[in-house]
């Protein structure tokens, strides 16, 4: 298997905090890979190291076949980054932004204009091409930001929370664009806090928790790890009171129901019990949960964590 990104034992410390505590990654070329984690888990630090912005304190990382510390220039020739805050020039128009990036990427003036027009059309910005970016909506900025990363089709694309702050429609538009990038042959490495985004987009997902990869696999593999169904207790209005994962055995299901039975909410008028398949949310919560109450089946590669989610 050809790897576009390979990290072994990455460590980074800011002050007294270990942001990354031995991170391992292996991303196959041509795939979409999602790094999932809560705020502060180290997602942006991981991207910053892989894109040569920050030096790791320990460990090694290779991107597109080159060491990020020893050969940053070679890595930079093969990557593009769309960071968290839209990296666009607000004073320039969309065309001027794209032409500038094209020139900086080694295109001639004419080629840069041709490529800019092409991308503006593809991202639905042709009508606004001559407007200053300062007048753009959040969704338009994000699309331009992504277009800037595509000015030359580099092998590895990094997207740091590409859809944060976007409305549902803009988000879905962006998803289809990201999907098509991978179809063109690029490797896409994205971070997200949205499970749905990872579920819909990514070939493989890694869950980052406290500076380490706590679980990694396809969406289906991750869901399978949680074991059995989830038992929910809902109140008379259908609101979720308690949900408990089970390990898939009859004994586990009974234990979960007994647990619910001890809850005062179970005796309330109109309270009812549901059983459903686990979602990626359950996996995420199971791996990253800090408040423990009910034992959960162990997740490979991490400590057995416990879960009790009350909404």
């Amino acid at each position, binding site marked *: 298997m050809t790897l576009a990104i390979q990290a072994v034992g990455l460590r980074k410390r800011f002050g007294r905090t270990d942001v990354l505590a031995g991170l391992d990654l292996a991303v196959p*070329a041509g795939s979409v890979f999602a790094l999932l984690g809560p705020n502060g888990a180290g997602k942006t630090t991981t991207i910053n190291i892989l894109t040569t912005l920050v030096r790791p304190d320990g460990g090694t990382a290779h991107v597109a076949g080159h060491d990020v510390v020893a050969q940053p220039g070679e890595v930079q020739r093969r990557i593009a*980054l769309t960071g968290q805050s839209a990296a666009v020039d607000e004073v320039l128009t969309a065309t001027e932004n794209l032409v500038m990036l094209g020139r900086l990427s080694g295109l001639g003036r004419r080629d840069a204009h041709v490529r800019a027009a092409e991308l503006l059309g593809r991202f639905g910005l042709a009508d606004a091409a001559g407007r200053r970016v300062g007048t753009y909506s959040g969704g338009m900025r994000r699309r331009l930001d992504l277009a800037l990363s595509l000015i030359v089709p580099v092998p590895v694309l990094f997207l740091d929370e590409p859809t944060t702050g976007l409305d549902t429609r803009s988000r879905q538009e962006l998803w289809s664009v990201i999907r098509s990038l991978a179809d063109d*042959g690029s490797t896409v490495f994205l971070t997200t806090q949205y499970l749905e985004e990872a579920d819909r987009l990514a070939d493989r997902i890694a869950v980052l928790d406290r500076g380490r990869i706590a679980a990694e696999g396809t969406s289906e593999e991750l869901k399978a790890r949680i074991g059995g169904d989830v038992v929910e207790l809902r109140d008379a209005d259908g609101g979720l009171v308690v949900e408990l994962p089970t390990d898939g055995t009859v004994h586990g299901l009974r234990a979960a129901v007994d647990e619910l039975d001890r809850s005062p909410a179970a005796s309330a008028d109109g309270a009812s019990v549901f059983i459903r398949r686990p979602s990626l949310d359950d996996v995420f919560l199971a791996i990253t949960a800090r408040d423990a109450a009910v034992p959960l089946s162990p997740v490979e590669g991490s400590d057995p964590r416990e879960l009790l989610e009350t909404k």
Partner: protein
Amino acid sequence: MTTFTTTTTTTRPRLGAVTAESTFVSRSFIHSVRDVEALLMAVVLPTMLMLMFTWIFGNAIDPSGGYVDYVVPGIILLCAGFGASSTAVSVSRDMTTGIIDRFRTMPIRSGAVLTGHVVASLVRNLVATAVVIAVALLVGFRPVATPLEWVAVLGVVALYILAITYLFAAIGLAASSPEAANGYGFILLFLPYVSSAFVPVETMPDWLRPIAEHQPITPVIETIRALLMDAPLGDSAWWAVGWCVAIIAISVGWGAWLFRRKAGRR
């Protein structure tokens, strides 16, 4: 480690020697031209200051009417300082928005983005200097400089603009936000008043005089004044050049250190 191969994607080519610099210079020019308020100020401020100092203060300071010949170098530096201060805001804006990270993940000297701001500032402020001189000539400024002395004036003014622009760029790198950069920069704009720009240093209180005599702006003023009005130059030209070069060296060193430390750590 497996090798990376691909058929549909490409790597960025290596850039020509000054492609990045010229791209960033044209970016900063577009920024300058589109900032209509700043552009207007760059013309209005020199005009207003020139008229104010000759018509309102001038007769009180020097009833003989010769004050305009004295004050022109001071107004040039005051306006250049004002014009260069926007560099701090531009640099800070680049650093605090994500755009610097995009440049830093590309195979270019990311310091080239600062070169763009500096060159744009130099050109903007040379235009402002031309406006000052034009207005001054209209209200009675009568320089006696030879063409060679004019070239020397241009050189000193350009060197001063570079020095103060690099200093403002470093301040922009040090500031936590564009607003803060604007605030710090403001302090520097008062320096010309505590120099020989508007009144002779001899008229100042005893405690202030040594400061006014030995701060960097006084020798720059004295040099320009001597060249324009054919006054004795003394050693002020050496001090002027020395100060400017020292300020550039310190600002570039400080700026490079700040740039490495801050970029990627928003």
